[in-house]
């Protein structure tokens, strides 16, 4: 009897041991759910539970910028260099430094006159692709708020920038102009299932708003696009459900946006990639308490009203919304992609959804375009006849950027996060419309040495008289001046930013050796009153210098777009002098009409006449 009993005890030991240690030991999923800011309301479970079964999808999502949209700081995910070096802007300074595992920034206090300083500790981070923003934790009574700190780390540029220099606005000495509160701003679109839980304490005059905010997960995770997972996970826990379809597993299937109808499919991305107001507006109270009412699988427009150019502003700046759109209603700020898609014939008359071009689990995480349809195949999956003879449609070299569908039909005319992005309104270029609505034109974003009437003439020749010749520009700049140059000086800040970025691109039509005039005008734009325009102009000059050097690389590298007015002026004139002295035997001579003489000196009076057209209205477009 002893031997069988011993064997039985040995056989029972393993399951008993495993069960005991699992019930007494730490539970990773429960530990995540117990973290500050995390809720498990509404059937949300968090991505750790999804990973248990969908390891591959989890891994493919983890590498995306969605996954890293909001993070707690740690040695492995803080991108900024906290080395104690000082960051200066508008006469004040910040000093990011590290104390062990803590990331700290020595910043001026909000009372600038007192020149007080304080140490802020980074408690939350937003962004992971272009730049990383830092938030400090503020205890407000028995509640907590996270407030944005005034400097951010630009990942591409590998440098610190002040917040005032990355939004589309003029220089501003107020260091805390963009001290947004995460709980009532970022929480909505940079997290999963946000619940701001703003307390109704507005009656307490002067008191800072209080929040008990929670999210299902920091960042954009599985449940943002597939819906709450608790029911699905519970129903599929049994292998009988998974393998033989027993029980209610089918009813508890996770939502898959690629199987939605067109409207529901674009709703998934549009819940964040489409600036919006609650519909009806009275729902705003729900939003600030329990979050947006849209759930994956719903029709978004039954919950929200997308903000358009003519959307009425209830309080504050009456131009708050209209400034975010070009004159024809096309968005000129990022996070309005939904509006663009909804206005596109490909959506209205076709079957296009976001997933027609984008993939969340495959391909390059930058842009997340479908890898199975590279280049023009994104468009020719529907427009098959064009694919058969590309040159017949584009009248450009089929291998060049002039035959890239998106260059003409989705031009880069959208400002966001110190970059210019593609418009998501898929449409025809139209020089007369663009001249009349002060909108950048697709042709002259590449042909930076050409005018709008030239573009119209080409289009009429190729595609017929439906394209009108522009008779006047909305900014009243002469039509005889190349559009890129006229826009760089006479446009409003958004136009100037778009062309400042465009001129340096490798896809532009003039060879880099044929851009002496563009370089001189970019040098002037480096003195722009808007720091974002200055930075984009400087970057374009550096790109041109890289492709066709004239010996200005060191000078351009040393220019700081955040520097004060005098160093900026010095930089402009040093660059203009450098071009005048060094470009002569390295670059082609300027074309006529480009406001640059044969001596490579700018026609400054003409340039000033153009810049005077900018008007005195300050535009400041928040993102």
């Amino acid at each position: 009897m002893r031997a069988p009993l011993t064997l039985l005890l040995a056989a029972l030991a393993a399951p008993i041991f495993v069960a005991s240690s699992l019930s007494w030991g730490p539970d990773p999923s429960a530990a995540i759910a117990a973290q500050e800011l995390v809720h498990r309301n509404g059937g949300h479970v968090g991505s750790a539970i999804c990973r248990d079964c969908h390891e591959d999808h989890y891994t493919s999502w983890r590498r995306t910028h969605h996954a890293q949209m909001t993070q707690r700081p740690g040695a492995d995910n803080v991108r900024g260099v906290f080395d104690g070096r000082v960051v200066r802007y508008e006469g004040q300074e910040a000093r990011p430094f590290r104390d062990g595992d803590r990331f700290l920034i020595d910043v001026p206090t909000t009372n600038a006159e007192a020149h007080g300083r304080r140490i802020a500790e980074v408690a939350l981070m937003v962004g992971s692709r272009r730049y990383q923003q830092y938030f400090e934790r503020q205890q407000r009574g028995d509640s907590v708020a996270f407030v944005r700190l005034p400097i951010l780390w630009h990942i591409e540029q590998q440098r610190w920038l002040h917040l005032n220099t990355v939004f589309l606005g003029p220089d501003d000495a107020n260091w805390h102009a963009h001290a947004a509160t995460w709980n009532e701003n970022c929480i909505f679109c940079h997290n999963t299932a946000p619940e701001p839980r703003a307390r109704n304490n507005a009656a307490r005059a002067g008191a800072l708003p209080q929040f008990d905010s929670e999210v299902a997960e920091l960042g954009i995770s599985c449940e943002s696009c597939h819906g709450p997972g608790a029911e699905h996970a519970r129903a599929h826990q049994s292998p009988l459900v998974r393998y033989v379809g027993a029980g209610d597993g089918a009813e508890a299937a996770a939502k898959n946006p690629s199987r939605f109808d067109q409207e529901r499919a674009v709703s998934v991305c549009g819940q964040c990639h489409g600036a919006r107001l609650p519909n009806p507006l009275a729902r705003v109270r729900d939003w600030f308490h329990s979050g947006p009412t849209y759930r994956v699988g719903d029709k978004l427009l039954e919950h929200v009203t997308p903000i358009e150019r003519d959307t009425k502003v209830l309080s504050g700046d009456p131009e708050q919304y209209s400034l975010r759109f070009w004159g024809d209603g096309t968005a000129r700020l990022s996070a309005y992609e939904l509006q663009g898609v909804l206005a596109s014939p490909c959506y209205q008359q076709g079957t296009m959804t976001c997933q027609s071009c984008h993939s969340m689990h495959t391909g390059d995480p930058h842009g997340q375009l479908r890898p199975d349809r590279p280049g023009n195949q994104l468009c020719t999956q529907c427009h098959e006849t064009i694919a058969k003879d590309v040159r017949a449609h584009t009248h450009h070299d089929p291998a060049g950027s002039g035959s890239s569908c998106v260059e003409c039909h989705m031009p880069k005319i959208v400002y966001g996060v110190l970059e210019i992005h593609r418009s998501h309104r898929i449409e025809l270029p139209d020089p007369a419309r663009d001249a009349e609505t002060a909108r950048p034109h697709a042709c002259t974003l590449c042909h930076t040495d050409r005018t709008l009437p030239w573009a119209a003439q080409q289009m009429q020749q190729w595609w017929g008289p439906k394209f009108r010749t522009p008779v006047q520009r909305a900014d009243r700049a002469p039509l005889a001046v190349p559009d890129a140059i006229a826009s760089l000086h006479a446009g409003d800040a958004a136009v100037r930013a778009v062309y400042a970025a465009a001129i340096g691109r490798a896809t532009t039509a003039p060879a880099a050796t044929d851009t002496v005039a563009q370089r001189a005008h970019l040098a002037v734009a480096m003195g722009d009153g808007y720091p974002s325009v200055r930075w984009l102009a400087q970057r374009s000059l550096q790109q041109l210098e890289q492709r066709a050097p004239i010996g200005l690389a060191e000078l351009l590298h040393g220019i700081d777009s955040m520097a004060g007015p005098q160093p900026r002026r010095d930089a402009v004139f040093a660059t203009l002098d450098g071009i005048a002295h060094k470009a002569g035997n390295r670059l082609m001579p300027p074309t006529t009409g480009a406001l640059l003489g044969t001596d490579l000196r700018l026609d400054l009076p003409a340039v000033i006449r153009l810049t005077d057209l900018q008007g005195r209205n300050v535009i400041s477009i928040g993102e």
Partner: protein
Amino acid sequence: MNERAPRIALVTGWLLLAFSLPLGLTLEALHAWKVPVYLGSALRRELWTLAHAHGNLLGILCLVFAALGARVGGTDAQRARLARWLAIGAVLMPLGFLLGGVMNREGDPSYGIVLVPAGAVILMIALFGTARLALGRSGEVDPA
């Protein structure tokens, strides 16, 4: 079967198998029913899988030693000593992996993992000892 060496190896081998096979079954069940507390820790899953695999393989090794141990030569006392080393090593290694996955942190096993290298060293002593005896005996058989 009156020798001590095969007796020690047999008991250890069968007990290891009696423990490790149900352990594998248990782990499969945890996978089948998608038990989050188990699946949530990749390190624990790896350690317990290693415990299951080592337990079974070393159990079989003990049984092989019990069956063929007499052929390696040496005295009964020498083989019994080797069998004890083998048994200790064979038990410590899977036990170390198993305990390493109990109360472990996200990135590291718990302290139980120290039994693994200890068991591995003891196992190697047993195997080298066995090999030495076997080589010595083969030398007797074939002096050339």
